[in-house]
C-alpha cells in the first residue's frame, strides 16, 4: 500500500461552508430502504471516492445529490444553500452540479457538438457561436476535436464517456458527480476515461466519485468512503482505508476485491 498521493495536497479540512454537506439522508424505493442516514462533507477542491458493493447505495446517493431522486429525510447543502428545501430552484441547482452516468446517456439525435452546446445555449442563454467556441476548446483539450460533427453512435465507448464528461464540464459546474463511469467500458478503454478524471482532479475540480476501480480510488481520492447497507460505515484517507481498514465489513469487502484481482 502506498502513502498519500504526492500529486495532491493532504486532505483539506471542510471549512464552515463546505462544497457539499449531506446530513441524515434517507431514501427508500417502496419498501426497500436504500439510504439509511448518510452523513458526508466534501470540501472545495476535494475528491471523495465512494466504494462499496453493488446495491450499497452509491449511485442512489449521487442521484439524490443531483435531485434526480427526491430524498425522504435529511438535508443536502451545496455551497451553503440547502438544495433539498421545498422552495429550492431545482433547475438552477442542477446547473451547478454536473453528473456523468455509467451508461453515458448521450443524446443520440445530436452531434458531438450538439450534445455539448445544448445546455449552455438553452440554459445559460449563451449564443450558439460562443457555446461552440467553448465546446471546441473542451474537445481539443480532451482529444476529441476531430469528432465534433459525428453522432455518438460513431464513437467508441471510451470516447462516448469522455464526451459525456465534456458535456457536464461545458456547464462549468462547481461540483462533479461521477457514477461508475468506467463500469460499462471494455477494459482497454477504461484508462482514457480515468486519465481525464485525474486531470480534472489535478485542476482542483470538486468531485464525488462512485467507483469499482479501487486502484484508481487509491491514487486519486483525498478521502475514501466505504458504503455498506445504505450508510457510510468507514471513511478516511485512501492509505488508511485500503491499508488498515478498521471495520470487519470493510476488510471483508476489500478481501473480495483483492481475491478478484482488482486491487
Amino acid at each position, binding site marked *: 500500500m502506498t502513502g498519500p498521493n504526492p500529486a495532491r495536497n493532504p486532505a483539506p479540512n471542510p471549512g464552515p461552508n463546505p462544497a457539499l454537506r449531506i446530513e441524515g439522508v434517507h431514501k427508500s424505493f417502496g419498501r426497500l430502504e436504500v439510504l439509511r442516514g448518510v452523513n458526508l462533507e466534501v470540501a472545495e477542491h476535494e475528491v471523495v471516492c465512494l466504494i462499496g458493493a453493488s446495491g450499497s447505495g452509491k449511485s442512489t446517493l449521487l442521484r439524490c445529490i443531483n435531485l434526480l431522486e427526491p430524498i425522504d429525510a435529511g438535508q443536502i447543502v451545496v455551497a451553503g444553500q440547502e438544495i433539498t428545501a421545498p422552495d429550492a430552484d431545482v433547475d438552477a441547482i*442542477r*446547473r451547478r452540479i454536473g453528473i456523468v452516468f455509467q451508461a453515458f*446517456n448521450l443524446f443520440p439525435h445530436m452531434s458531438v457538438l450538439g450534445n455539448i452546446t445544448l*445546455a449552455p445555449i*438553452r440554459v445559460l442563454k449563451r449564443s450558439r457561436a460562443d457555446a461552440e467556441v467553448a465546446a471546441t476548446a473542451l474537445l481539443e483539450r480532451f482529444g476529441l476535436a476531430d469528432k465534433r460533427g459525428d453522432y455518438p453512435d460513431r464513437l467508441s465507448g471510451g470516447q462516448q464517456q469522455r464526451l459525456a464528461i465534456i458535456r*457536464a464540464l461545458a456547464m462549468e459546474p462547481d461540483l462533479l458527480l461521477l457514477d461508475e463511469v468506467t463500469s460499462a467500458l471494455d477494459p482497454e478503454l477504461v484508462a482514457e476515461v480515468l486519465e481525464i478524471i485525474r486531470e480534472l482532479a489535478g485542476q482542483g475540480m470538486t468531485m464525488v466519485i462512485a467507483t469499482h476501480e479501487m486502484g484508481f480510488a487509491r491514487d486519486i481520492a483525498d478521502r475514501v468512503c466505504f458504503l455498506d447497507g445504505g450508510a457510510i460505515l468507514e471513511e478516511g484517507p485512501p492509505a488508511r482505508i485500503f491499508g488498515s481498514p478498521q471495520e470487519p465489513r470493510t476488510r471483508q469487502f476489500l478481501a473480495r476485491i483483492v481475491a478478484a484481482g482488482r486491487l
Partner: protein
Amino acid sequence: MVVAIVSTVVVFTAIGWVVTHAPGWPLVQRSFFDAEEFRDALPDSIARLRINVQLFVIAEALILVFGLVLAVMRSLPGPVFFPIRLMAVAYVDLFRALPGVLVIFILGFGVPGLRLEGVPKDPFVWAVVALTLTYSAYVSEVYRAGIESVHPSQEAAARSLGLSRFQALRFVIVPQAVRRVIPPLLNDFIGLQKDTVLVSFVGVVEVFRTAQIKQSAHFNFTPYLATALIFIVVTIPLARLTDWLVARDRRSQLRGGVR
C-alpha cells in the same frame, strides 16, 4: 427465379381464364369494366381528386401539430398538471370512440345549420375540422407511444444539465420520439387519405362523389372502379415508403446496437 416467373404466369393465367369464362362474366364486365365508361370517368375523377388532396394536406398538417400538443399534454408529469392530463385523456377517449363519419355529419350539417354570424358555412372547412378532430386522437396516441419509448435516462441526462421539464421534452425527448413513430404515423395517413371520401356525404364534390354522380346517371359501376384504381395508385407508394422506413429502422438498430 425462372421457376417463380413461370409458375406465377401459369397460376395467374389460369385464374384469369376461369374468371372470364365463368357464366356471369359478360354481365360483370358490362357493369364494372366498361371501357367507354372508364374513359369517360377517369379524367373527371382525377380532376376532382384535387379536392381530396387539398383536404388531405391541410388536415394532415393540422393533425401533426394538434396530435403532438395532445400527446405532450398527456405526458406532463406531476399533480399540478392533472387537469391537463385529464382533458387530453377525455378528448382522446371521446374522439376514438366516435365513428369519423358521425363527426363529419354533426359538424358538416349541424354547424352551418345554426346560421351563426362569422361561422363558415363551407362544408369543406367543416370536413377539415372533423377529420382533424378525429385523426388527432389516433395520432396523439402514436406520438405518446414514441415519447414513452424514449428511455427515462434521457430525461435524467437533460434535467441534470439544468434543462427544465419542458426544455427536456422539446429538445431531447420529442425529437427522438417523432423519429421513431414516423412509420406508424404514415400508416395513419394512409387511412386518412382514404377517409377523405367520407366528406362527400356532407356535399363536398370530390372524387368519390363525382363517381357516384356518373354511376347513377349511366347506371354503371365502372366509375367506382376508376376511383378505386386512383386510390390504389396513390396509396401503394405511401405503403411501400412506410415499409421501407420500417426496414431501414430495423437495419440501423441491428447495426447500432445499444444507443
